[in-house]
């Protein structure tokens, strides 16, 4: 039994089932608001700039980037890892919070999963374009080879990446889509427009909400969820192995797989927080995404931030403890101090320290500050990847080859293009899909949202 006296009301405003459907579907029936058009316009602009960056890269080559012999992985890989990290939140919400039975996830998981899909799409572009010869992109898939004895290098973590990420994308997409089927059916039943009825009718696969349907739906959700949980972990572990199977100081360290996974979920939750604050403001969803929901996310972020801070300290301590001069140089002379100290300290402060402000209730209750901190987390996690990718490559074992790295306008364009893609995707999601899982909210509504007195419970 859910004790609302202690746990608080989950969905505010004493909603009935039909209130829930109406509230959540309302933004889809309303006229498209002005902010939507303005944001879509800006995002399209960014996307076009990105297309220019793509064109530039493909028609001329990787030479248009700021890479050099040493720093062969620049912004493209930083952004790839950053986006993949953000793409972890959705499934983390759906699965991990399910395991620890957090009912509040129902108001948020739909949007978080949508974010996952678009973030992974944005991420996937980078390795593809990084090949230079994008038309040979199909080489990375392990298909029956018709070009003679040329196979993928199965020993390469880059290849593992392809497998892990494409699997993850498919699983998250199916999981997300399946969750929407009952909601699509709800829209189909409610809408007055004949076209909408057709489209959402097709999307809902003829869902009629019978008992057998629900039974199978829930079994499938549990099965898919169970399979997606290890996938979440595997994806970023394998991304970390792109770095850690090497012998490069600062890359080769055994803590990398869990450290990357925690970082990914941390950045994903940061982005969820950013998005949720925007969404509940624009769509007036304060009854569904309550202050309590945001409070819960900030608590998780505090915990994650502590793990991140501990991981940073562990790395520093071990660099010293190892007694290896290369490790010591990389961490003490090329990260904590040296050319990249700005990036290093930005990372440390944004990820390890600023989120610690969430220990204070006053900070957690002030949504403006929470929003700003969530932006700092997004920034800090970008810098973490910058620190990892660039510092270790720029100064490795051979001082004669040391080089510095600056991104070119093309790289910046490609990055902004992926942001445009992500924002456009989210906008489409806002417009055409119920942003909160109607059926799931209804599932927890009765139990969690009326204030029972103490005497009822004891």
């Amino acid at each position, binding site marked *: 039994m859910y004790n609302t006296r202690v746990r608080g009301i989950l969905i505010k405003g004493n909603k009935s089932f039909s209130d829930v459907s109406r509230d959540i579907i309302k933004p889809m029936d309303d006229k498209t608001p002005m902010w939507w058009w303005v944001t879509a316009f800006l995002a399209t602009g960014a996307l076009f700039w990105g297309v220019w960056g793509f064109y530039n890269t493909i028609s001329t080559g990787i030479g248009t980037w700021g890479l050099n012999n040493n720093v062969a992985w620049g912004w493209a890989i930083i952004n790839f890892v950053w986006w993949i990290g953000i793409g972890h939140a959705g499934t983390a919400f759906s699965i991990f919070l399910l395991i620890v039975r957090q009912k509040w996830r129902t108001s948020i998981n739909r949007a978080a999963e949508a974010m996952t899909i678009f973030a992974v799409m944005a991420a996937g572009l980078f390795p593809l374009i990084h090949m230079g010869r994008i038309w040979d992109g199909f080489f990375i898939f392990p298909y029956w080879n018709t070009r003679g004895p040329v196979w993928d290098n199965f020993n390469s973590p880059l290849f593992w990446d392809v497998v892990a990420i494409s699997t993850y994308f498919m699983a998250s997409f199916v999981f997300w889509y399946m969750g929407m089927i009952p909601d699509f059916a709800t829209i189909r039943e409610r809408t007055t427009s004949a076209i909408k009825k057709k489209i959402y009718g097709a999307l809902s696969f003829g869902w009629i909400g019978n008992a057998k349907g629900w039974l199978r739906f829930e079994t499938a959700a549990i099965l898919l969820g169970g399979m997606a949980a290890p996938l979440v972990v595997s994806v970023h572990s394998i991304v970390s192995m792109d770095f850690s*199977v090497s012998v490069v100081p600062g890359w080769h360290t055994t803590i990398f797989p869990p450290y990357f996974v925690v970082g990914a979920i941390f950045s994903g939750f940061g982005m969820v927080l950013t998005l949720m604050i925007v969404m509940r403001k624009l769509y007036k969803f304060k009854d569904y995404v309550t202050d309590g929901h945001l409070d819960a996310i900030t608590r998780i972020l505090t915990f994650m931030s502590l793990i991140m801070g*501990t991981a940073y300290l562990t790395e520093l301590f071990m660099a010293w403890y190892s007694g290896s001069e290369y490790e010591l140089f990389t961490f003490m002379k090329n990260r904590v101090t040296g050319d990249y100290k700005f990036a290093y300290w930005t990372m440390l402060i944004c990820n390890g320290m600023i989120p610690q402000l969430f220990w204070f209730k006053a900070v957690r209750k002030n949504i403006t500050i929470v929003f700003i901190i969530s932006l700092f987390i997004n920034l800090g996690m970008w810098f973490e990847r910058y620190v990892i990718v660039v510092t270790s490559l720029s100064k490795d074992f051979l001082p004669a080859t040391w080089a510095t790295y600056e991104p070119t306008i093309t790289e910046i364009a490609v990055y902004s293009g992926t942001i445009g893609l992500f924002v456009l995707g989210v906008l489409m999601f806002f417009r055409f899909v119920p942003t909160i899982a109607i059926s799931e909210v209804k599932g927890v509504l009765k139990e969690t949202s009326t204030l029972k007195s103490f005497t009822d419970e004891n």
Partner: protein
Amino acid sequence: MDNKLQIGSKFKMAMFALIAVGVITVIAGFLTGEATRTWANLLLNNYYFLAVALGATFWLAIQAITQSGWSAAFVRVPQAMGNYLIVSFFLFLILFLGIHNLYHWTHHDAVLQDAILLHKAPYLNLPFFAIRYVIFFALWIFLTQRIKKLSLKEDQLGGTVFFEKIEFTSKVYIFVLAISFSLFSIDWLMSLDAHWYSTIYAVKKFVMAFYHGTAIVLAIIIILNKLGQFPMLNKTHLGDFSRWLFVLSMIWGYMWLSQYLLIWYANIPEETVYYVPRIMGEYKNYFYSELIINWLFPFLFLMWNRVGKNANALLFVIFVLIVGQWVELYMSIMPNTIESHSITYVEIGTFLGFAGVFALVIAWSLTKAPLVPRNHPYLQESIEDGH
């Protein structure tokens, strides 16, 4: 619901017998010239039961910060396990007598001739080592006792004030434990081979503690249930516990893989040196059984839904895990101390002795408070779980 546990005299006698076996084994070990082996076993078992107690209290703290309702009826068990920390503090003290047998870096003259040990000396030196040991134990004991006291006060006064205080203390405890137990594992286990290092080593030991600590919590609950306590225990609770074990088995396997795969792949001699005696030599069988027992078996077995809801099947899994943790620590400690492998009466007797102390302390602690907390805000939620 308020019945306190009574310890039977048979149980007491049996535990005292186990302790006697342990003491005799240790004395015999020293007398028969097996000093290093005996010290290594004392370290193994000290660490073993400390990890179980810390893991259980960590599990308790996680329940508090995630506001888990289903487990509210069972919090007294991990709270009682926290009491072992006090005993553990004194049992660890014994090890200081044998510190030179175990840790190469405690030999002053050896350090002077070794550039790497000299570099590490500001951290790895006996006074600082002892200071850390005292600080860590003090923090653990203070915080776990505080959580327990708050919970007992809640029994008397009710309300949600104590509940909130427990949550806050749990957050602090988790933070403290993350850093302190990591350093503790580096101090007492990783520094057995002071040249070698791995950043995930302490994390893996942390997960081991969490994993096996949770298993022992469940074991105690099931056993007490068979003795007529915890009448509310049902299949949903068992299912929840088994899900914890299942997830932790995966995390444990993941930590194992992270360390092994990366060291194997990079193949740097400074790092592979750790695995060479463990894979190539006499320890080979233990190396693979560690992985099979702690990950593969629970992973496959607990995947079966019926197992997760069957108390006897779960007891069997926990029994295997008890062996598993021993094998893991055996693999961590022995190749760096006694080098050649053999299991003698010292291994078995010392373990039994420590198990006796542990069981006695837990049983005694369980009698000190009502087994089911009276005013936990989620108690009703926990009891009605699954109905």
